[in-house]
């Protein structure tokens, strides 16, 4: 079963993260202080809560990312089946991508890609 390796990779990466955390917890000295416990120890003193209201621009970027994420999901079956399909499959995917590039162009034109 191919997925056994996925399981092994997941287990090993989880073990590495957990092992690193556990090891540093075991050997590191514990002398907490007010400054050490502050979120930005080596910079500005923190102001206000971490949970502030986000700018709507983040949501737009998230939305655009999600749309192209879904597009990428559709590229996989196309790419896997590409050898058995002819030139028409290439054209069909070209149209698919062109429509989405129109969306990207619209977002660009409307300034949704500008960092505000």
């Amino acid at each position, binding site marked *: 079963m191919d997925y056994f390796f*996925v399981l092994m990779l997941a287990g090993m990466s989880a073990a590495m993260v957990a092992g690193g955390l556990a090891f540093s917890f075991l050997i590191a000295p514990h002398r907490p202080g007010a400054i050490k416990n502050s979120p930005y120890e080596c910079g500005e003193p923190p102001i206000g809560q971490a949970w502030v*209201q986000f700018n709507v621009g983040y*949501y737009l970027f998230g939305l655009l990312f999600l749309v192209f994420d879904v597009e990428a*999901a559709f590229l996989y079956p196309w790419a896997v089946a590409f050898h058995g399909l002819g030139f028409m*499959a290439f054209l069909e995917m070209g149209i698919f991508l062109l429509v*989405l590039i129109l969306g990207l162009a619209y977002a660009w034109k409307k300034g949704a890609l500008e960092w505000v």
Partner: protein
Amino acid sequence: MIASASYTVIFYLLAALAVLLSLAVVNAWKLLRAAIALMGVLSMSAGLYVMLDASFLAGVQVLVYVGGIVVLIVFAVMLTRSAELLQDNPAPLRKILGAIASLAFLAATVGVFRSSPFLLSAEKAPLRDNTTLIGEKLLDYGAGGYVLPFEIISLLLLIAIIGGIVVARKTEPQGQPFTTGGDEAGEAEFRPPFTQEEHEDELELVEK
């Protein structure tokens, strides 16, 4: 093909983890912890899809749901005013209604499970790698192909982009491009975790 016993063990492991992580999503006080647990729940269901030999669906689950939807949910919550969410203490009526709704959903789920015949598919295993099959069906322009729905998907995604931009652009306050905070009510009362004197004391300690 995995042996039947280990198949069962892995299934129950994934199912139990999914249930535990779902409980963590509901009970987490911090939004980001709930989001990470939600990623775990969705990954476990991706594992269940793999066990059903639906490898493409599992890939989409990880790519779109774990990687995209959860991030979007977090952004959506972060966009709202969060102070009310933090001190959300539901009224007893809302708790009762919530319990009734949950029990009704449980009853509906159990009812569907009991009334479904759960037909086994005619073939014991998929003919071939189903990602290839999906690709061939999606791009087949002959009879029985799905090329028109495939192209319409791209139009649907285009509509999502345009709709999202139109809606989000409208709500943005004019002349105030970035909310850095600082002039919000309540932030004036914030005290840093240490005073300037303590800071200097600690710096001296570090120098020694």
